């Protein structure tokens, strides 16, 4: 499998390099769908220029990257294109290896369950075979590298690519079972943007499953493991934050980075729900709705963890999706990360209900974003409502996609327990509903 992967990497790098050299790169780095005030490359350059002028980059409101990012780009600013291509390659390879390992475990669990006769007889067609699972890792890497969203994000030099790389490395280290590395990468991801904090729960569940620790509140081993992981996570987070303090000598970056992510002062349009909502918010209710929207991102962690405690990798996928949809400054780079996981659930296709509608809406919205932006900002013949409407549609489509996959996953699990062809009391074919 190394050869096809190498070929894929070569193709991806070529496409990106070609776009870097063309005139489109300037155009793409200005698109609001691809870059946000948190991730724009122009702002990184501005921060470095402010540092050269002797002014702290956090004294203004233009620069919102973490100090480690400044430090990294202080040395790498001349090799920025290579850095971002390398980040994409790292993400793809990490996801490839992670999914390969995960597939092995899925297959092994399935084998044990089959031997223990846990599946009803008529659902044998739901059992997965190694042959169908063979190309899934390559498809995951391909879905990530050749996704137009990822390519746009890379060509725009949005630092979202670096965030994705760190999260991919976190997923890889979690799936390989390395507790320390998992904690370190998770703390790096949380340090960059606060939202990956919710990935703690699936990581804990997976690592406990792997170490055969039962997920039971009454067991001491459960709590002991949580304490260990929390210690490693919080310790590395503390080290990173103190390191950032010593880099620039002040705590200015805390309100500039984390205060900015949480309080959303910059209302630059993007593909998310926050900007227009807070542009039109009554001042009296601003704080209330800000809290509601931010809690909304973290709120689904516990219920999803309870429901999906046997399937932590699907939980990671769900959490990534919830973060990408409901975070304060989303970009298409965030979307491409969770979309890369879709081939892993390709066996659910027979239970998906809305996939045609969702894919049509996503394609249409992706095409309409630049059109309506141009009409609003340049032509002046539309107003902000047009762009906002497409934002709403886009997010509804994403929500439908995620809930559709969740439905399909749960339904397959139900069939694996109760059988595929269910009959009603009078013997006729039954329909399943959620009640």
């Amino acid at each position, binding site marked *: 499998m190394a050869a096809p992967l190498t070929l894929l990497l070569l193709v991806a790098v070529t496409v990106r390099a070609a776009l870097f050299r063309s005139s489109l790169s300037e155009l793409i780095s200005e698109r609001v769908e691809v870059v946000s005030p948190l991730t724009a490359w122009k702002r990184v350059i501005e921060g*470095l220029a402010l540092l050269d002028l002797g002014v702290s980059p956090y*004294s203004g409101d233009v620069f919102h990257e973490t100090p480690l990012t400044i430090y990294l780009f202080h040395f790498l600013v001349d090799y920025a294109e290579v850095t971002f291509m390398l980040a994409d390659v790292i993400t793809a390879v990490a996801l490839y290896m992670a999914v390969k390992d995960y597939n092995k475990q899925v297959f092994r669990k399935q084998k044990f369950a089959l031997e223990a006769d846990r599946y009803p007889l008529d659902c044998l067609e739901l059992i997965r075979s190694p042959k169908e699972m063979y190309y899934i890792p390559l498809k995951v890497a391909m879905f990530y590298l050749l996704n137009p969203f990822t390519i746009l994000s890379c060509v725009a030099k949005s630092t979202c690519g670096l965030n994705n790389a760190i999260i991919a490395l976190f997923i890889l280290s979690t799936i390989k079972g390395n507790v320390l590395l998992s904690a370190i990468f998770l703390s790096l991801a949380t340090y960059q943007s606060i939202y990956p904090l919710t990935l703690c729960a699936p990581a804990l569940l997976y690592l406990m499953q792997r170490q055969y620790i039962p997920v039971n509140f009454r067991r001491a081993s459960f709590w002991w493991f949580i304490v260990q992981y929390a210690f490693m996570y919080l310790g590395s987070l503390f080290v990173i934050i103190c390191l950032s303090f010593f880099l620039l000598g002040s705590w200015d970056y805390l309100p500039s980075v984390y205060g900015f992510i949480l309080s959303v002062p910059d*209302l630059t349009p993007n593909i998310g729900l926050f900007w227009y909502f807070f*542009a*039109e918010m009554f001042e009296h209710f601003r704080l209330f709705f800000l809290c509601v929207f931010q809690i909304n991102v973290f709120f689904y962690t516990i219920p999803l963890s309870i429901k999906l405690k046997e399937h932590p990798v699907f939980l990671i996928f769900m959490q990534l999706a919830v973060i990408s949809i409901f975070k304060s400054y989303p970009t298409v780079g965030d979307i491409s990360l969770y979309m890369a996981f879709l081939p892993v659930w390709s066996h659910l296709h027979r239970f998906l209900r809305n996939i045609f509608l969702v894919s049509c809406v996503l394609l249409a919205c992706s095409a309409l974003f630049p059109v309506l932006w141009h009409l609003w900002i*340049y032509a002046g013949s539309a107003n902000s409502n047009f762009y906002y409407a497409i934002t*709403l549609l886009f997010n509804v489509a994403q929500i439908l996609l995620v*809930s559709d996959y969740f439905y399909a996953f749960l339904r397959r699990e139900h069939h694996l327990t109760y059988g595929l062809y269910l009959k009603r009391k009078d013997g006729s074919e039954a329909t399943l*509903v959620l009640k």
Partner: protein
Amino acid sequence: EANAVIIPQCSHIPPGRRGCLMETTVSPNKEELVIRPLHSGDIYTSFQFRTLWETDFTRENKVSHYRLFPKSLGQVISKFSVRELHISFTQGYWRTMQWGQPYLPSPPGAELWVWFQDSLTDVDGTWKELTNVLSGIFCASLNFIDSTNTVQPSASFKPLGIGNVTDHQIVCTENLTPWKKLLPCGSKAGLAVLLKSEKLFHSSFHSQAVHIRPVCKDDQCKTTSWELRQTLNVVFDLHNSGQGKNEWSLFKMFSRTLTEACPVASSSKIYIDITDNSQGEQFELSPATPLLSQAVVLGDRRTFSVYDLTQQITFGTICNVLKLPVTYSAHAGDMLRPLLHAERYVAGYGLQTGEIHTLMYNNHPYRSFPVLLLDSVPWYLRLYIHTLTVTSKGKDNKPSYIHYQPSKDRVRPHLLEMLVQLPPNSVTEVTLQFERALLKWTEYTPDPNHGFYVGSSVISSLVPSIVAMDTNNSRERPLFSSFFPSKEESSYFVRVYTEPLLVNLPTPDFSMPYNVICLTCTVVAVGYGSLYNLLTRSFQIEEPSPGLAKRIANIIRKMRGVPPL
């Protein structure tokens, strides 16, 4: 206001009870009017009124003896520990290329610069109170000055001060009346009689200003007194109100005549600039006057005809009769081109990004000189300092000093100060890219599609002059040439203001707050609802529900205790 006419004869007033106005070598109260016909055919008139006030705040805490100094301003100085204050209200833009340099430059709109005493600790609170009080005194909406449009430059304005150039203010009669009230004679006697609002505001350029600063009484500067200068600069348009014949008189310009001199004024003069009329070919003054005066103004030696209003003889002859027939000069190129000139404009299209271009012209044939450029840009135009380029004659010209303070959203504006060396006979272009922010719907002005004003940039410089300057400081000099002292004998201080910019920002739809809140919350609820369903419900086999009749029968059967159908 204690504007009573008191003849200063200090020797008869016992000291100790109130402050004593000492006899000084410089007259306490002067007023003058300078009329200068411009090459473009307009007439530039500049009024200056100066009042001196002897008082020392360190010795007496409560000052009650204001004499000719307006009490409202005196109280402002003492209460807010003000060291120096400059406030100006301007309507119109000074066209340097057509009109030359003004005696006192001022940007369009309102501008307020204040220097506080060193003993003041809470600058921000005092600044806010001061702007509110001045807003009341001058009937101007200066109370919109707050931290979001105030800057503290490090180099441009010496002495160091805190300043603000507000956005577009319409200057009107309500601002002129309180300004006139501050004059010792009000608008009842002296030159202030000519200040009638209809004619003054029907002009191409109108600027009124108040400057308060401490001045030295003697050469050793052991004691200081407060000087209040009120200036009014107006440029009348010949073609606008000419009636065929190019003949001007005081009555035609101001629709008022001079009735009497101000009794408290020690000096009240009218100066007419006749430098371009040395042979009498352009215009002819009637009545003629034998008094002539020469002064070096803005690096140029000018000759003036003087009419002294304190002499009764003058009064008798010029009352209603001062005529100034002016023929329109066909060759405007004769005018001495201003050595320093600046323009500014916004480039780019669309509502996302833009570029500010500032052009500075150095018209000196062989000397280059440094200029200090001060730019204060509001926070909603996010400047990118790494895109700053300064080019002269097509080549890169790196500024020797840059002080940049980036803006903080909704707290303070950008401040950019640069020291640029302008090569001789060249145009220097400074470009800076910016991004336009989307504001909250309550932060827009009532007419958001009009755009937002960006205050003028200030370009200050010591310009080498073509004519050597007279260094004799102690003589009495006309007010308009003594405002900015300059130490070098061959250069003079110039401050140029550029045009204000009008920039459009993208706007949200103002009619939609409730709709937007509902729609966005609906989308969040769709997400919540789908996930809630999937989390709390489980799959069950659906039994077909029986028909309505059967269901009612089943209910009755349940009540009877009989098994259902």
